[in-house]
């Protein structure tokens, strides 16, 4: 039973990634795209954690932790870029 649930969960998360990608492409302004990228990071962390629990490969959890860290740092960096403007 858990196999089917895991597959449904993975497909749902993939669908969420796809919908966030639509906003990433459409997004009229740069902050819209930053929000979509932030959501991307969280969704990918969720995907990796589920895959680690399902396959039993514990080492991938460290990758999830690193992706969460990089996602936060990149969001803050992009926001600083938006606020200060392009340094010419």
């Amino acid at each position, binding site marked *: *039973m*858990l196999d089917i*649930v*895991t597959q*449904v*969960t993975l497909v*749902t*998360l993939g*669908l*969420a*990634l796809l*919908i*966030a990608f*639509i*906003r990433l492409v459409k997004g009229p*302004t*740069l*902050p*819209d795209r*930053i*929000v*979509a990228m*932030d*959501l991307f990071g*969280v*969704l990918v*962390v*969720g995907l990796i*954690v*589920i895959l*680690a*629990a*399902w396959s*039993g490969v*514990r080492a991938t*959890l*460290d990758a*999830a*932790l690193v992706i*969460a*860290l990089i996602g*936060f740092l990149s*969001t*803050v960096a992009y*926001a*600083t870029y*938006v*606020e200060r*403007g392009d340094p010419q």
Partner: protein
Amino acid sequence: MIDVVTAVVWLAGSVFALLAAVGVLRMPDVFTRMQASTKASTLGLGCLLIGAALQMGDFASFIRVVSIGAFVLLTTPVAGHVIARASYFAEVPLWTGTVLDERQRDTQRESQNNNSIDK
């Protein structure tokens, strides 16, 4: 028993993640999109992490899962605040149905007070 709880929690978490993505697609401006994404994705990822911790069950992975959860729980509000602040000061247009912009109201009041003092 553990499998059943894991299945329920994982399904709930993935639905919350999907709702966050739908909110980001459907909401009308940056600020509403940001709040949909931060709240729903934190809750969804929390559910997924609880399920994974139950499923793996050993101490080393439990510590990692808890640290991922604590990190995301601490950083998501900060990231949301930074995005909202940056996009407000970059003058990203608000939704046309916005009823209250407290910051704009306060700055207008402040400039009026300064003008009356000058006179």
